[in-house]
């Protein structure tokens, strides 16, 4: 691909800084995520009124899970969060990004990582803090936090590759909102965002395990909360890495195809 680490770090750094300038946007984001986090918790509290476990998960497990997934929304854990690429294709602004001596893919990947690093460290962390303070969401053990780091980086790679492809359909369809909508439905339900995958019926669980979406939300969440044994963690990371590699390759192939037939809109 490209050996220009220092350039992509510079891109990511600017993207991070850019995200910090939208203070009211992330404050509103935290409030919304916390609101829905609280709502889900009330539902769980009602459902678990008799005590016990559901599919191996205690009430506290379920609550912690809900807050973790809410905290991952802003890094693409629930639906596609950044439509920057398709917008720039639609408006024709993509023209500048195409006439640069860099990898278009890595450019957008670094932009996405910079923004998401901010979202994870500020939006996500603050949202989770609300869950910890008001609903007793569990703080992760240091060892799990350590495993969570590679897991979340891989998750962001899978999520980026997927949204990159969805966005890139704009080159052919001009308007990728339809594809985005459909993708978001899949992402929301099949990633383990709405409910822990353990709650699903067996057939649906098998489907989820065969698709990449669990690598984006379900697996890193389970690692974060210490719900996986060391061997399972290793297997989860391997699954994520495999999906990251596969979807990145697909994304690059799609980019090459798009470049061949590039039609840039507008004068």
């Amino acid at each position, binding site marked *: 691909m490209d050996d220009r680490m220092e*350039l992509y770090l510079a*891109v990511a750094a600017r993207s991070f800084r*850019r995200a910090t*300038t939208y203070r009211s946007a992330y404050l509103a984001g935290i409030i919304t995520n916390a609101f829905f986090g609280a709502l889900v918790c009330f539902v769980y509290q009602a459902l678990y009124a008799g005590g016990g476990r559901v599919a191996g998960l205690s009430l506290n497990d379920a609550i912690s899970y809900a807050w973790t997934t809410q905290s991952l929304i802003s890094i693409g854990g629930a639906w596609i969060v950044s439509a920057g690429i398709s917008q720039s294709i639609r408006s024709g602004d993509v023209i*500048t990004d195409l006439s640069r001596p860099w990898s278009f893919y890595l450019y957008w990947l670094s932009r996405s990582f910079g923004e998401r690093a901010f979202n994870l460290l500020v939006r996500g962390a603050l949202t989770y803090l609300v869950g910890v303070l008001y609903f007793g969401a569990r703080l992760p053990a240091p060892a799990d936090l350590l495993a969570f780091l590679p897991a979340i980086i891989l998750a962001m790679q899978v999520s980026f590759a997927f949204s990159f492809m969805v966005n890139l359909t704009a080159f052919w369809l001009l308007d990728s909102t339809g594809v985005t909508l459909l993708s978001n439905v899949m992402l929301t339900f099949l990633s383990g965002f709405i409910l822990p995958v353990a709650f699903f019926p067996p057939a649906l669980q098998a489907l989820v395990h065969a698709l990449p979406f669990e690598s984006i939300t379900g697996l890193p969440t389970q690692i974060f909360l210490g719900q996986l044994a060391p061997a399972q963690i290793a297997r989860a990371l391997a699954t994520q890495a495999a999906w990251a590699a596969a979807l990145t390759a697909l994304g690059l192939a799609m980019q090459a195809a798009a470049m061949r037939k590039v039609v840039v809109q507008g*004068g």
Partner: protein
Amino acid sequence: MALIEVENLQKSFSRPVRRAGRLGALRGLLAREYVTMEAVAGVSFTLEAGAMAGYLGPNGAGKSTTMKMLTGILVPSGGRIEVGGLVPHRQRVAHVRRIGVVFGQRTQLWWDLPTIESFELLRHVYKIPMARYRENLKAFSELLELGPFLDTPVRQLSLGQRMRADLAAALLHDPAILFLDEPTIGLDVVARERIRGFLSEINRERGVTVILTTHDLSDVERLCQRVVLIDHGRVIYDGGLDQLKTRHGRWRTLVVDLADASCAPLVEMADLVRQEGPRAWLRFDRERTSAAALIAEVAARYPVRDLTVEEPEIEAIVRGIYERGVGVI
């Protein structure tokens, strides 16, 4: 070999046809019919290093499409382009290192960040040595007066400031060629003049080859020795601006501000082409009528407040070429 060689360049777009009738939309979904539109239909020209050329034509002539092919972002449907020995869309990365591009309607700067941040990023993108980067930044800041807004987020810049910043951004890496698609669009006279001064300076002092599109003939007059005029995707004139104007730019417009808005200034020697309130536009043929005679006539018959003679616009020159035939080139 010339720096830019374009031979029989073509680009066609296909667009779905909208069908009439109530079921038209539905049928259109099932089986789409396409029409092909030839945006660039066989353009040829060459440009020597160090030149400054205007690529002109009316709306929809195919200027931007050609610029996109020259900069390697659009793949031609036919013909040949070579820029400095490279084929832009095939050797895109090597090509774009040597060129600077400004599309006047877009910005290459990061909208939400201070202008200087985008410049810094470009230093990484083009691996510009620090010393050279500083030197260029200093030179462009002075020439374009960027200093006051280097730390301002791009979204807060005025159009003129943004355009100046975009020009500097396109030149930081010392490109050999600068492609400009409407670099003066929407700017006032002062801002325009500053950009023209800057362009002629970098062309003269740094030897940057410049090719620009514009609808403003005064840009061309000030900057370009050479003009390529296109219409409907075809070259209809290639040569000096002076010849173009003397041979084809015979139409002038006299703009008259009347003291009395209710009368229409009708005279033998010119056509009234437009009237808005007290202001009227009279088109006349310079070869048959002198501006002086027309002004005298109008002033004698109507209460006139003010008069100006407008130079021909690109559209009028194109009309002139068709009226006299393309062969006159």
